[in-house]
């Protein structure tokens, strides 16, 4: 009898807690649905602004997908006018991870680099100058090493076909496509 009473006593609070959790989840799901596109749009705009700041010579960029990225490299973008590349990488500092964009010219020379996302801990205490400088240098070096690999792949005829600026708005770097299919592939990626 007492056990039944206890069960009833537990079921009520559990039901309320579960209901509140469900309502909170639904509210967050709806908010996520509503804000998702705007957040993505903001992210793209910020990325474009950061890339324009780090490489003002270029007017637009195309993402390089399907590449085996090294550890620490987040993304690679290619200037559509052939000005160079922007490599986004991460580096760890004593205060957390920072994200850095490095602009490289066609020969792999670092033009500029810039921190686009400070570490979360930087809100509390910005990292000391020397630690930040070291992290920036690490990112630049990483970008240079990654560039060497991209350069090799871009030097192949297939990749050159894929990367023609007028045809490659959504191009994908392809490294091991048979030579005879290069032209066909170039047509496929035309947008």
């Amino acid at each position, binding site marked *: 009898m007492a056990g039944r009473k206890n069960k009833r006593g537990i079921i*009520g*609070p*559990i039901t*309320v*807690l579960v209901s*509140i*959790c469900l309502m*909170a989840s639904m*509210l*967050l799901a709806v*908010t*996520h649905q*509503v*804000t998702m596109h*705007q*957040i993505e749009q*903001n992210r793209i705009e*910020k990325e474009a602004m950061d890339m324009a700041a780090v490489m003002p010579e270029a007017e637009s960029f195309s993402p390089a997908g399907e590449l085996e990225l090294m550890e620490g490299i987040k993304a690679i973008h290619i200037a559509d006018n052939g000005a160079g590349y922007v490599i986004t990488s991460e580096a760890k500092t004593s205060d957390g991870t920072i994200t850095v964009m490095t602009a490289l010219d066609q020969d792999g020379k670092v033009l500029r680099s810039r921190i686009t996302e400070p570490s*979360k801990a*930087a*809100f*509390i*205490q910005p990292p000391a100058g020397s630690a930040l400088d070291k992290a920036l240098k690490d990112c630049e070096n990483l970008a240079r090493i990654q560039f060497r690999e991209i350069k090799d792949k871009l030097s192949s005829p297939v990749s050159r076909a894929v990367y023609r600026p007028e045809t490659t708005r959504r191009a994908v770097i392809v490294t091991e496509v048979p030579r005879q299919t290069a032209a066909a592939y170039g047509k496929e990626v035309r947008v």
Partner: protein
Amino acid sequence: MPRKSKKQIFISGLIDENPLLVLILGICPAIMFSTSAVSGLRMGICTAIVLTCSNIIISALKRVIPEQVRIPCYITIIAAFVTLLQMLMQAYMPETYEALGGFLPYTIVNCLVLGRAEAFASRNSVSDSAVDGISMGIGYMLTITLASAVRELLGTGAVFGLPVLSNLITPMSIFVLAPGGFFVIGCLIAVLTKLAGSRIRADKAEDAADEGGQSL
């Protein structure tokens, strides 16, 4: 116990029941974020927004939430609200989100928010809880900003990034570290206790004089 008016609730949140200096709530984030005046102000703004909104929601649901599960319910509501605010800010106020984004998640575990939910919002009306949230939020924001400004001034010689005492004193970096935070907040508590103590004594003397006049 007589019910407080909204004005009394507002004043008590700022001075008599100042969350940081009197109730000693939210000390951890205060020590952590009060290294510079700007970060202190940002943390204060975040806490004020979350505190006000969570107070309103918890007060509105106080009859529905059972006693046994009130703390998990409050935490769920506060966490949901902070996440909601974070998403809305990220979408529609990206610049503000960039500035405040790192601080927002920390407000979930700020004991001030949970403390007011438990001590005030769960026992009072929605409007009173809203006033309490606003006053406590403003009180916390002002105090943490003041503590941050003092720490930044003594630790770096600047306030809000502007050099004020750079050439006059040698910056004492201990003030930017945790011990300096405890020291500054301790000094502020002492000053407020002194001021509030003399005010309470003056009020008591006034009451005694009134009673004496009436008896005569």
